[in-house]
């Protein structure tokens, strides 16, 4: 139980922090797609005896490249390309996994997590990967922020745009692998996006948004873990349910409604619709 707790707390910090960048850039769909697309990488690594993280990373990068190549064509939009790669890759993963005898259980664990089954070795990997991602966020914070806010500025400032894009991708893949056992691939998106979205309703600046998101992530995960333990329900989904309930609560309370109303009354706004 203690190991599960530590895993839940680690994931509750790392996912929302990285997820902040996804939420800010409207990359939620991409995050979900990537989580699903790395399944074959994990399965192959497992079958061949390689570290799961490596398989995940390789397939993560391969998926991103595939999405890029497919969406180069005029006729295919980017979100369609993402959908195609995600579904195809996921199907490949499930197919590969079905060749293994313990297929059904394994698949359930991969998709929905198995935090109570985290071993000491697993935990060590989770914490190390988690610290690695947090370190990268700290080291490259301002560059990632510029990329998220204004990609043209990134070019004007001669930032290594391609490298930073791949960096985010790699960080995402590492985060997914670290969080795999806690929440599973199918619900990974919730761990990445929900606490950060709640934070976006509460925070005015990005650093505080990350801090609030992390706090909410930890709280949801710990509370969810305990509830699942005592109700004998799957842990990963329970954590997600708590995080979602928190979001809905904050959303309903609408802390910035008054400010929005005042602002709307003051200026018609020069903003173009749809952006």
């Amino acid at each position, binding site marked *: 139980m203690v190991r599960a707790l530590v895993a839940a707390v680690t994931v509750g910090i790392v996912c929302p922090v990285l997820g902040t960048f996804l939420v800010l850039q409207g*990359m939620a769909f991409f995050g979900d797609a990537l989580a699903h697309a790395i399944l074959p990488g994990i399965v192959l690594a497992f079958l061949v005896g390689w570290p799961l993280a490596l398989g995940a990373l390789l397939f993560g990068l391969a998926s991103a490249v595939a999405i890029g190549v497919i969406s180069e064509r005029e006729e295919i939009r980017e979100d369609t390309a993402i959908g195609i790669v995600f579904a195809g890759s996921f199907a490949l993963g499930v197919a590969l996994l079905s060749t293994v005898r313990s297929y059904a259980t394994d698949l359930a664990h991969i998709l929905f997590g198995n935090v109570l089954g985290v071993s000491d070795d697993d935990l060590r990997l989770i914490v190390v990967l988690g610290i690695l991602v947090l370190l990268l966020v700290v080291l490259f914070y301002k560059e990632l922020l510029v990329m998220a*806010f204004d990609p043209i500025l990134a070019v004007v400032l001669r930032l290594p745009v391609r490298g930073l894009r791949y960096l985010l991708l790699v960080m995402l893949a590492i985060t997914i692998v670290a969080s795999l056992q806690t929440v599973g691939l199918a619900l990974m998106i919730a761990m990445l996006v929900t606490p950060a979205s709640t934070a976006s309703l509460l925070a005015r*600046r990005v650093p505080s948004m990350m801090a609030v998101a992390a706090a909410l992530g930890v709280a949801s995960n710990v509370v969810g873990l305990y509830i699942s333990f005592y109700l004998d329900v799957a842990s990963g989904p329970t954590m997600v349910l708590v995080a979602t309930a928190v979001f809905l609560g904050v959303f309903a309370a609408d802390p910035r409604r008054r400010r929005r109303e005042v602002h709307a009354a003051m200026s018609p706004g020069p903003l173009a619709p749809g952006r």
Partner: protein
Amino acid sequence: MVFRFRRPPEHQPTAATVELEHVWVYRKGVPALEDISFRLERGEQVAVLGPNGAGKSTLFQVIVGILRPQRGRVRIYGSGPDRHLCIGYVPQRNQIDWRFPVTVWDAVMMGRVARIGFFRWPGPRDREAVAQALAEVGMDAYRERQIGELSGGQQQRVFLARALAQEAELLLLDEPLTGLDVPSQEALLAILDRLRHRGISIIVATHDLGQVMGRYDRVLLLNRRLIADGPPAEVLRPPILAQAFGSHLHILPLPEGTVAIPDTCCSNREMVQPLVSGRPGRDRP
């Protein structure tokens, strides 16, 4: 010692700020810019005037180095645009995500990211640069405001401050006065006038003829090719304007003199194309 990815090139002392030589840019097989040649010297303030679709944004992209011309050369202070940190780009307001949770201070500080370098945090020099830039544009009192809470004119000034904080010596302003009321326009123009004395070169892209009268050293009339390049008095004449604006120009002979009214307006779809190849998942128009 700043760890920067690549060192910015030296500014050659005798070189022009911007020099384009026979630049051609093709987009999907069709020329967006045809045989563009011009020079901009230090401290000059010029307007690039042309209807929507004329290639003004493409011109900016080529100067910044986002686009490489298929033919011809672009030189900034004597070398290609790549790696230069002295070019400041002030985007059209409809390109910015105003819901992004950053304050005015945060947005302007982003202009310093290249000067700060990798693995370092903003230092006293950076904070000073941001404070000075904000003072220059008169937005110091708004430091802590979230950018979405600003008026159009204020937003424009924040992004100008960002370019100043970047220590840009060449400013490219893309339709800066569009949608601003007259007092806001005048406030912005007053700031640009002050910058003239600092030797900062400025290029303003606009489709609005009215904005250009009586203000600039030179006007470049653009509609895929450079139709005219000279003092406003020479360029802003109906027969020349007609070449750029075509049927979008209405010429009225009045007793006081001939009046030329362009009817180009509003959204500039050119810039709505993603300039940097789209990020996965990012919404596209």
